[in-house]
């Protein structure tokens, strides 16, 4: 999936939601009145936890333990066990404030399973449980030490195969198009002297401008000029129209407009309109000549 902007300068034109039911809330609730803690893995080394404590639970805690409650996340290593609250391999505490409501935690060991208790730590060291999270297995880090007899492979061969599989490119080459494109954009911007968007100088801004040529860079005074031609008109909206023998699509109101770069030249522009039933036609001819000369006075 690639869903990004076509350019770095685009902003959404989405306005405020057209809400035809103004009495309905348009905001996300801050909390849902739950007392819970959730744990999510982010990568082999980090997990994320968020929690919520119901207001009445909170005030009961304050009533019982006072205003200065020390909230902690107790992180348990529960690898390969059915955790009952006291049989963890080990645990460590992270002190959090009531305001945090979420925390990124760095686990001390890879390839383990973890669970957290949200609780209170009392001055005497006692831990009062508020809520227990789900258990997560962290994403496996590194190649496995286990081999399958039926599919056995020599260590050296396996190392070579892992290399052939491009292990060192993981996370480098799989990055997203949008990021690649944004980096390219930033690089381009840093290299471009002109700011985007380009000044809408004219339709002929495609040509190298006088200001770009070495000759004029030496001098501070410069002039730049070019020409373009607009051929326009109107006829019956259902008529068919040709310009120089080529058919031209009419706007719904019968008008038309052609615009093009005009170099030094002499051109004939026949315009012909035919009525829808083919019985009538009108023709207009133009002859246009452009001839340029330069006069540089120093």
């Amino acid at each position, binding site marked *: 999936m690639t869903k990004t902007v076509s350019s770095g300068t685009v902003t959404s034109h989405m306005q405020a939601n057209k809400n035809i039911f103004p009495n309905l809330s348009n905001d996300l609730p801050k909390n849902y009145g739950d007392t819970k803690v959730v744990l999510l893995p982010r990568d082999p080394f980090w997990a994320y936890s968020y929690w919520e404590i119901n207001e009445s639970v909170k005030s009961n805690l304050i009533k019982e333990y006072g205003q200065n409650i020390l909230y902690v996340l107790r992180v348990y290593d529960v690898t390969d066990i059915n955790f009952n609250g006291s049989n963890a391999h080990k645990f460590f505490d992270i002190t959090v404030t009531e305001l945090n409501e979420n925390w990124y935690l760095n686990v001390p060991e890879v390839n383990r399973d973890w669970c957290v208790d949200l609780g209170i730590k009392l001055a005497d060291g006692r831990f009062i449980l508020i809520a227990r999270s789900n258990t997560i297995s962290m994403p496996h880090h590194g190649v496995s030490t286990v081999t399958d007899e039926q599919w056995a492979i020599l260590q050296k061969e396996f190392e070579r*195969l892992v290399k052939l599989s491009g292990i060192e490119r993981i996370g480098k080459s799989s990055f997203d198009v949008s990021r690649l494109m944004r980096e390219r954009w930033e690089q381009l911007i840093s290299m471009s002297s002109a700011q985007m968007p380009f000044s809408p100088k004219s339709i002929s801004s495609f040509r190298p401008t006088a200001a770009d040529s070495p000759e004029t860079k030496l001098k501070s005074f410069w002039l730049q000029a070019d020409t373009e031609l607009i051929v326009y008109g109107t006829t019956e909206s259902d008529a068919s129209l040709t310009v120089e023998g080529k058919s031209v699509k009419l706007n719904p109101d019968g008008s038309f407009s052609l615009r093009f770069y005009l170099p030094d*030249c002499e051109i004939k522009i026949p315009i012909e309109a035919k009525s829808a039933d083919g019985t009538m036609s009108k023709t207009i001819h133009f002859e246009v000549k452009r001839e340029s000369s330069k006069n540089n006075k120093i």
Partner: protein
Amino acid sequence: MKPKGYWCLVLHAHLPFVRHPEYNDFLEEDWFFEGVVETYIPLLSMYEKLIDEGIDFRVTMSITPPLANMMCDELLQKRCLRYINKLVDLTEKEIWRTRYLPEFHETAKMYEKKLKEARRVFEKHNCNLINGFRNIQDAGKLEIVTCCATHGFLPLKIHEKATRAQIRIARKDYEEKFGRSPRGIWLAECAYTPGIDQILKEENISYFFLEAHGILYGTPRPKYGVFAPVYCPSGVAAFGRDMETAHQVWSADIGYPGDPNYREFYRDVGYDLDYDYVKPYLHEDGVRRNTGIKYYRITGKVGLNAKQPYNPAWALNKSAEQAGNFMFNREQQVKHLNEYMGKEPLVTSMYDAELYGHWWYEGPDFLNYLFRKTHFDQNVYKPITPSEYLEMFPKNQVLTPAASSWGDKGYYEVWLNSTNDWIYKHLHKAAERMIDVAERYKNTSDQLKIRTLNQLARELLLAQSSDWAFIMTTGTMVEYAQKRTKDHIVRFNTLYDQLNNNTINEGFLGEIEWKDNIFPNIDFKAYTF
């Protein structure tokens, strides 16, 4: 002659569901229109031509449920045709404008030709590209896999029933759209954690794809690395990504799309030309944006105003040359692996489909040459689909793959960091509520309640699209992604309260059914399994 190995090309075609009937003209809908014109039609049209010319090829594509639902949506079809017609108008004007500008005239003619061809293909399929892709699948050249219903990021869900619903609803939608059952699935962002395969098994899906380290870090060790699929303990097969082919295309420095002859994405007539001239082709707000008509080539590491004119013939030659290079490298890789492994390797190349055409303009030309050259010019490797491979080689190693994704750094950080972690509290709560009401009301026959429950499911699913978290991380269009997350959660919560309080507001329900109409035949009971 028996090939020395196999090559499986997988293109992941996905866009988030963006459809705003409440506006006449909506910027983010362009993602879909640009995808249609620049990627989906060129691919489809190429497949059709290859079949017409009798050239055998194989390609595997995910067409995700949100994308499939957009392709089938009448409003978006109409708007897409409007978009194409406007571009055709612009290119006709461009033919005139550039008549005395030879360095741009050929490119203008190329656009006119391509856009008219795109319109022809689009109209041929009644503006519904699903019809076209289904034909190619039925012809046996293309294998379409499904994806999570709204590209939900499965490892960050905590309710198994919500995970299952992402698969079950996707599967049902696939059956409606493609008239058969999906054999495989592209897990959104290739995000996997052990256990997901069990759900796939129960939903009758036989294979999925993994980033390379999902296989390489699996337990026990994978004997053939990523060059043969493995079976998970559930019996579902997993195909690992080959990083060499990934690197050839993706690498910022040596990747194919960065060639100086290729079209420069960032110079567009929407910015370059006279304002009054391009205004009719911009959005209603009149802000200069990309139109898709671009006249310059990448040129080299130079600033935007030092870019040189694009030459369609040079670009085409380059794509042919690169296709030859890709083929040569596959031949070498397959020969080498075959000797080393003592059996036929499988090289699985996985890319975002939108890379081809939308980001890398010449990408479809590259694929076209690659399919043709692969067919005519070599016999070392043979293109294959995952299903064909598993039929041919049913005996594979069993292992438990490692949790992984194909996102930056290989795990879940792109979808879980300080820019987007706030969404999970709301997504989890909505999932918990959905599972609760689905169970409580599963036997109801009250039509209004059933409609409400179905819409609750749609709102939850749309909120779960991994795209929103992704966009918040990438930092462009963030407001839109935040708003979409918020809107769907607020709509969900509002409907949920109305259902519980027996105060369903039919006007409100009707309004959001009209706006969020993904999965027209959804059944909320998917949340009871």
